[in-house]
């Protein structure tokens, strides 16, 4: 047994890290954040050169055919740099939907385009997790009616994967008749979510849809969100440590006060084991089907809590500065905040974990 990343995986992670360090510095994030409802095409093109959009897509369709663990460690870097990229829907959940439930024709039509980074794919699946404001989508005679909230990678999507109330998955084009779209503003300005309202919209069903396919999309999405939080949290910790080493009060750097040291050490102690959890949850998606769903719940709910703790604590270490727009620390704070919301908050996800094990009705 070897619980560690392979040499290739480390290289992959490093190359993504370097790419983002150079291409997604804070001032670029700031610019993108002023404009959430557009995809940052130049950054996406660069990511495509690294093969990021096609990571999970089989080589036959022009992708890299990598596994979820590879995707998770890449996503960790994306979170680390709060990169404004359409990652979750376009490179994880939508390809998964097509691979698990799509027809050959659908796969041939869309997967190569996703892999090439030519298109963005949104995912409307929130209502499979929890229903707000009577949202929900019904399929009747091949037409969709209803509403879906918090559609992932909503902006400029070339198609949407939509889950209906019976675990059916559908492919909907953005200009379909009867479809109206609204952007939703969240605290996180680095990713777009929106609302879709369907009024008898003609949709193309994915013929092999099943409850399992939907669940697997959610599991994978949750692990990726956990990885995103992990990376963002790690960066917040590093920023806090750096600040604690610079800022002076009472004639000493604040990092010399035990209270501040302990704040930093507690963050480190919370994050470090989380990394193993995320790795294992991602690995389970690839290799340990019996564990995958439960581990996805654990990873997501635990990272939600750790992420919030780290976000608050790192902000605390920065004193008044942490509260300013100027410092930009809040992009990480808010990123972690949205990660926590998407695909279910920790209480809900834990309830699911309890149900999976027969501990709750």
């Amino acid at each position, binding site marked *: 047994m070897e619980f560690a990343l392979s040499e290739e995986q480390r290289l992959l992670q490093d190359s993504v890290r370097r790419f983002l360090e150079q291409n997604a510095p804070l001032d670029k994030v700031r610019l993108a954040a002023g404009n959430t409802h557009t995809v940052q095409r130049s950054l996406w093109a660069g990511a495509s050169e690294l093969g990021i959009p096609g990571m999970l897509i089989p080589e036959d369709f022009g992708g890299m055919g990598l596994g979820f663990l590879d995707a998770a460690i890449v996503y960790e870097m994306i979170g680390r740099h709060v990169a404004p990229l359409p990652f979750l829907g376009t490179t994880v959940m939508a390809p998964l939907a097509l691979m698990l439930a799509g027809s050959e024709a659908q796969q041939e039509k869309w997967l190569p385009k996703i892999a090439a980074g030519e298109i963005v794919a949104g995912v409307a699946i929130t209502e499979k997790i929890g229903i707000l404001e009577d949202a929900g989508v019904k399929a009747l005679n091949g037409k969709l009616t209803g509403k879906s909230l*918090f559609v992932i990678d909503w902006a400029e999507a070339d198609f949407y994967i939509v889950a209906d109330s019976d675990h059916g998955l559908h492919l909907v084009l953005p200009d379909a008749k009867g479809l109206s779209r609204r952007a939703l503003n969240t605290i996180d300005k680095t990713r777009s979510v929106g609302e879709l309202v369907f009024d008898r919209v003609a949709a193309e069903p994915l013929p092999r849809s099943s409850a399992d396919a939907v669940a697997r999309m959610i599991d994978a999405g949750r692990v990726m969100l956990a990885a995103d939080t992990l990376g963002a949290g790690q960066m917040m910790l590093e920023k806090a440590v750096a600040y604690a080493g610079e800022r002076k009060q009472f004639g000493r750097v604040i990092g010399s006060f035990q209270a501040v040291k302990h704040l930093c050490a507690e963050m480190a102690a919370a994050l470090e084991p989380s990394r193993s959890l995320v790795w294992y949850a991602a690995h389970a998606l690839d290799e340990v089907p019996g564990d995958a769903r439960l581990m996805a719940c654990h990873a997501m709910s635990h990272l939600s809590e750790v992420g919030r703790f780290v976000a608050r604590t790192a902000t605390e270490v920065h004193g008044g500065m942490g509260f*300013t727009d*100027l410092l930009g620390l809040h992009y990480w704070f808010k990123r972690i905040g949205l990660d926590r919301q998407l695909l279910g908050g920790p209480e809900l996800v834990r309830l699911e974990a309890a149900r999976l094990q027969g501990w709750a009705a």
Partner: protein
Amino acid sequence: MNIDFTPEDEAFRDEVRGFIAANLPPECADSPALGVMTDKSVVKRWHKTLYEKGWAAPAWPEAYGGTGWNATQRFIFNEEIARANAPRLMPFGLTMVGPVTCTFGSAEQKSRHLQGILSGDVWWCQGYSEPGAGSDLASLKTRAVRQGDHYVVNGQKIWTSYAHEADWIFCLVRTEQSAKRQEGISFLLIDMRTPGIEVRPIISIAGLHHLNEVFFTNVKVPVQNLIGEENKGWTYAKYLLVQERTSIGGVPSPGRRLRISRRWHERSGTRMGGVDGRSRVPAQTRGDRSQAHQSRIHESADSRRCGGGKGGWTAIVPAEDRRKRGSAGFGRTRRRSRRLLYRTIRARSPAWRRQRTGYRPAHTRNVWADYGYGRAASIYGGSNEIQHDVISKAILNL
């Protein structure tokens, strides 16, 4: 222990509730439902209403415009104010410089400033922190040099809440370089219109402007604006911090947030298997705990006033004791209640802020502003780490 309200208490509650119902304009009840101040005119208007009724500063000594209510009455009043979602009055005058002026100010300062604070016509801001002097407040460098009947002030303040809305600022300034840093500090009242003052905005993580930097360049301040004695400002500053820390715990907030949260769940029809109901309970417990704690402190404050027989502001609770209590009550309430609200909105909707494009549901208005502001609650008025230092030193004698 007797926690029943007497018929007189109940009658008092009816009176307060009736007054608020009849006089709180709907836009006041709506707009600042949460912590952060959104609109000066709304707060001013409500302040004026309470002032005209004689209720703007219940905790002040009666001689200066207080109500003379006992602890139970103040408790009832606070509860009713919170229940009605009435805006919070700005604390810089009422709970900060007002009590300092009552206690340490000259007769002339009292007659000049207290009235404006009470009526809400004059707005104050707090010039304590500097770029190099946050937690280490005593290292402040803004200098005031006496020249004839004026001080000339040079330096910079930072994090000055609402300086851009304020008419006056109370400032800690260095009047002497002494070996013990706390000893050369003085407490000055400065008119914001004085030439040489420049206010620059700091934008917060919530994208709002309530913080500022304030620069002083050769600002002439009449010596009459010195509170108490020169170089004794630290004493007054600490007295003020006790008032501040006692008041910013935000005890009524959990109840208010809980009500808002319940309303949202009803409206949004969240179907989440009772998960959120469960997660609300601990927050409810903490809210109740804080309220009980506050009642206990008010009660002991009252009995001391009667028993000690000294009367007046300072005798309410001896300064040292107040300082401890100020710290002990501080921090917990604020953090917990915001956590509660955050839980709700997490379940509810991340669509929190209006932008040029896109939308978020109307009833989520102000939520992120409030939550974002709440991130600073463990920092302003002295960080939690500093409060813990104070508790371990002053209460636990460590």
